[in-house]
């Protein structure tokens, strides 16, 4: 990790390639679920551009990953605040494009059911209120501790835990119809 940071600070192209390779997918998924499918790729690129611009001032006081997801989180929240309220259904349809989990008809029934469950869960995550979704994604995609999340959001630890609790309850409720207990 130190080597990556030193490489980034020295402006080495291979360090940025590694950054994108190691974190691109996670950042993309985080951004996609928090800000939506349409701006996800651009916002992910913007995260890396911001890292490029500010890596010289990065001080390793916390974990690098937390710093990275803090940038991603701020960009997403700014984006969500700026954009007009969109019809969530169309966005949802786009996010979960029909062919995303398309399954070959010859595949076993269990596989199709599993894919349906996965799709339903992502659907449910994207329908969470933004505050709960933020905590859930920082935890599950960003790998951040609740303490780090609380610090990032500027809220008490109990608030972060509470939001995660409500998120989990909502997801469990949504998944009951798909055979989850």
């Amino acid at each position: 990790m130190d080597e990556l940071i030193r490489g980034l600070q020295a402006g080495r192209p291979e360090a940025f390639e590694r950054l994108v390779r190691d974190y691109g997918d996670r950042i993309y998924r985080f951004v996609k679920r928090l800000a939506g499918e349409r701006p996800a790729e651009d916002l992910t690129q913007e995260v890396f551009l911001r890292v490029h611009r500010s890596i010289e001032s990065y001080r390793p006081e916390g974990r690098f990953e937390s710093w990275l997801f803090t940038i991603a989180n701020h960009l997403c929240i700014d984006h969500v605040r700026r954009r007009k309220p969109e019809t969530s259904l169309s966005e949802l349809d786009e996010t979960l494009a029909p062919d995303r989990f398309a399954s070959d008809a010859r595949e076993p029934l269990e596989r199709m059911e599993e894919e349906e469950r996965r799709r339903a869960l992502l659907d449910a995550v994207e329908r969470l209120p933004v505050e709960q979704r933020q905590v859930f994604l920082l935890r599950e995609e960003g790998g951040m501790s609740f303490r780090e999340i609380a610090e990032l959001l500027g809220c008490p630890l109990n608030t972060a835990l509470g939001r995660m609790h409500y998120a989990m309850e909502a997801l469990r409720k949504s998944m009951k119809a798909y055979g989850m207990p």
Partner: protein
Amino acid sequence: MECPEFVDEKIGETDSLEFREHRAACAGCRRDLVELRELLGLYQAASTETYRGGVPRFRRPRNSWIPMAAAAAILIGVFALILAGPRTEGVKSTESGSGSAVFMRIPLEPWASDVRVASALDDCWRKLEQLEEKKR
């Protein structure tokens, strides 16, 4: 979720002795833990999209705050020269100590918007104008 006093532990942040003892006797909490684990496992299995954007070109965008900050630094320098008054001895006069320099720190987060940068620069202008007023 059962036993709300142990919600924090069940979400996964801590595993206190008290909770370990409690869940040994509480089937509801054990069930909660299994269900939460299953849910998060399913999420991890489902969340598999990949980023296809590649490494961005690290060109400095035209609306970046860096050129704006550079422009501000130049303006600050110009104001500093104005505040120092006319210099009659050319370059050597800088050693006299009569000249003044103005340094301003503009704390900006990496995600600061252009509006925020523009507002910070406006603040700089205002402060410089105040300094100029005082000098007069």
